[in-house]
């Protein structure tokens, strides 16, 4: 289940907040082992240990128990016996899924949609941020920023609703515009070939302004001395964008690209599901929507979990792979 929260990470911050190694305190020959350290910490912070129980329990119950529940992918799940009591069936559920005629379609749809989304939504925020960075502070700049950022806060349901109304075959804005240049009306949502474009470009509409913020921060972090010296050398603005700004935001861009590719399989299922209709199903059925339908609507829990697990594992593998490649090529990665 992928829920995008407002303000969810574009870049994950997983470095410790106090990376500097602490100097050894106290007299050197008193070796303080972890057990003493734990006891000291408990004596000092016992109230906080009590405080943290509830949220930690939350993560155990709602994140880690589901991970252990995923064992039903290898079982024939039976409600009465529960996830651990049900009989093992080995990889049967996976084999059934791989031999399912839907398998190829699902994989192809998921990958195509995800790659298309990453490719389309990667460069535009960079362009927007560079553009905003080049114009003077003023009402125009502020309103561009404020307004392009706003759609991020509109709910998925509303964005899909707007998309449907605007693309509506008879009275929608899009067909009005096409009518002006003499193109006959098109039923965009009823034609499977348009599905990917609708999905990707409505997403670009919603998130470009938000994603640009991160590049604006990176641009603001570039040492002004670099720009000054480039100016001294007679570089034009365009040359400075190319030789100072772009290299300056490269590390950020790499991290975002890694995350984008790493999240390939977790693409916005919520939105795909809302945009889906029987007419575009051939291209809009992805692994996540299939999991929802087989799992909850058809109550085939084991099969759906196997499919979901496959999805998660491919996703994690992709993330690790892309991170590895990015670190090799650019020296930047998510961690380490």
């Amino acid at each position, binding site marked *: 289940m992928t*829920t995008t*929260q*407002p*303000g969810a*990470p*574009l870049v*994950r911050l997983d470095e410790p*907040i106090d990376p500097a190694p602490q100097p050894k305190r106290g007299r050197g020959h008193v070796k303080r082992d972890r057990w003493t350290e734990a006891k*000291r*910490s*408990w004596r000092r*912070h016992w*109230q*906080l*240990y009590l405080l*943290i129980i*509830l*949220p*930690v329990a*939350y993560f155990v*119950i*709602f994140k*880690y128990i*589901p*991970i252990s*529940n*995923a064992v*039903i992918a290898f079982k024939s799940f039976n409600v009465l016996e529960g996830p651990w009591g049900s009989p093992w069936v080995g990889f049967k559920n996976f084999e059934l899924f791989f031999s399912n005629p839907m398998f190829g379609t699902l994989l192809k749809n998921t990958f195509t949609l995800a790659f298309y989304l990453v490719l389309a939504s990667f460069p535009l925020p960079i362009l927007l941020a560079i*553009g*905003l960075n*080049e*114009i003077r502070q003023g009402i*125009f700049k502020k309103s*561009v920023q*404020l307004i*392009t950022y*706003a759609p991020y*806060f509109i*709910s998925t*349901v509303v964005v*899909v*609703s707007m998309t*449907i109304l*605007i693309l509506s075959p008879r009275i929608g804005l899009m067909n009005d515009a096409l009518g002006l240049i003499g193109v006959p009306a098109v039923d965009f949502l009823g034609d499977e070939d348009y599905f990917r474009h609708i999905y990707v470009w409505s997403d670009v*509409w919603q998130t470009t*302004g*938000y994603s640009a*913020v*991160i590049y604006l*921060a990176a641009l603001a972090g570039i040492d002004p001395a670099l720009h000054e010296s480039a100016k001294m050398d007679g570089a*034009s*603005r*365009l040359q400075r964008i190319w030789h100072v700004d772009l290299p300056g935001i490269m590390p*950020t861009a790499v991290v975002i690209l890694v995350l984008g590719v790493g999240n390939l399989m977790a693409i916005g299922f919520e939105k795909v599901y*809302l945009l889906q209709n029987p007419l575009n199903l051939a291209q809009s059925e992805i692994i*996540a929507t299939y999991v929802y339908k087989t*799992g909850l609507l058809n109550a085939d829990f084991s099969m759906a979990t196997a499919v*979901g697990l496959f999805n*998660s594992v491919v996703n994690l593998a992709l993330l690790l792979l892309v991170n590895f490649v990015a670190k090799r090529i650019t020296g*930047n990665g998510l961690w380490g």
Partner: protein
Amino acid sequence: MSALTLDREQRRTPGTPPSKKIRDPFSDRVLVIVITVMLAVVLLLVLLPIVYIVANSFSSPRAVSSGQVTFWPVDFSLVAYQEVLTNPQVLQGYYNSLIYAVAGTLISVTLTVAIAYPLSLKTFFGRNVVMTGLLFTMLFSGGLIPTYLVVQDLGMLNTRWALLIPSAIGVWQVIIARTFFAHSIPNELYEAAMLDGASELRFLWSVVLPLSKPLLAVLALMYAIFQWNSYFDALVYLKDPNLFPLQIVLRNIIILNTTTAASGDIGQGLDARELANVLKYALIVVSSLPVLIIYPFIARHFTKGVMVGAIKG
């Protein structure tokens, strides 16, 4: 030559252009114009769909159904809003969403502070283990069905708790809060409070939280907007229409196109289908309004939240 002497010389010779260094090369000015035009286009592309929806929502049902409306209301009318604001489904949805937003925010902020504050202390033993455990859940999850089974076992299916508890803590929000606590609460304050004999909880309550109002505001708004906009948990966990949040009502009316109960009993003069049509536009406006009204006030803080992760790329 210093700027001052240059200035004096220019005053003495009025014929010369006022300044040599400020004027940009021609190509740079062209670039700025090109960029400005491009940004204006982007602005319009983002804005026009919204304007279109708003214009339709203020038009008469007939004008909407015949597709006459583009960016300005045709036959100005408030019928759609009247219909939306008297529709029992919509009102119930609004009410439910308010409950979810308020209760969810309270629960989420409390739990987030409760985990983020201890994790921000260097002397808190085991914090790296806990933090790694949290970050791992960002990368790997059990998936839809295994989570559903947990919610089911806890007896939360088809109750309001299903929307409040399973999505209560966001790891990203924990990171933001932890970073804030680590950087904004001076250690001296802590030492002083301890010398004065305050307990840790007392310190958290009477010193840390009052100093963290900006953080609490950001967290509250993030969680509130998240609750207000979410629909999927409700789709999975709820069956009872009386518990549906606004987003589900919206989906049923606009995307699934189920005609509402209320649109049946309209006066004879109006075609029910036309009314159902215009209702959709007003519904979009009404449901997005709360978020868009508070948005300008919080955009700055959200930007800071995003940047927490951006600075170290």
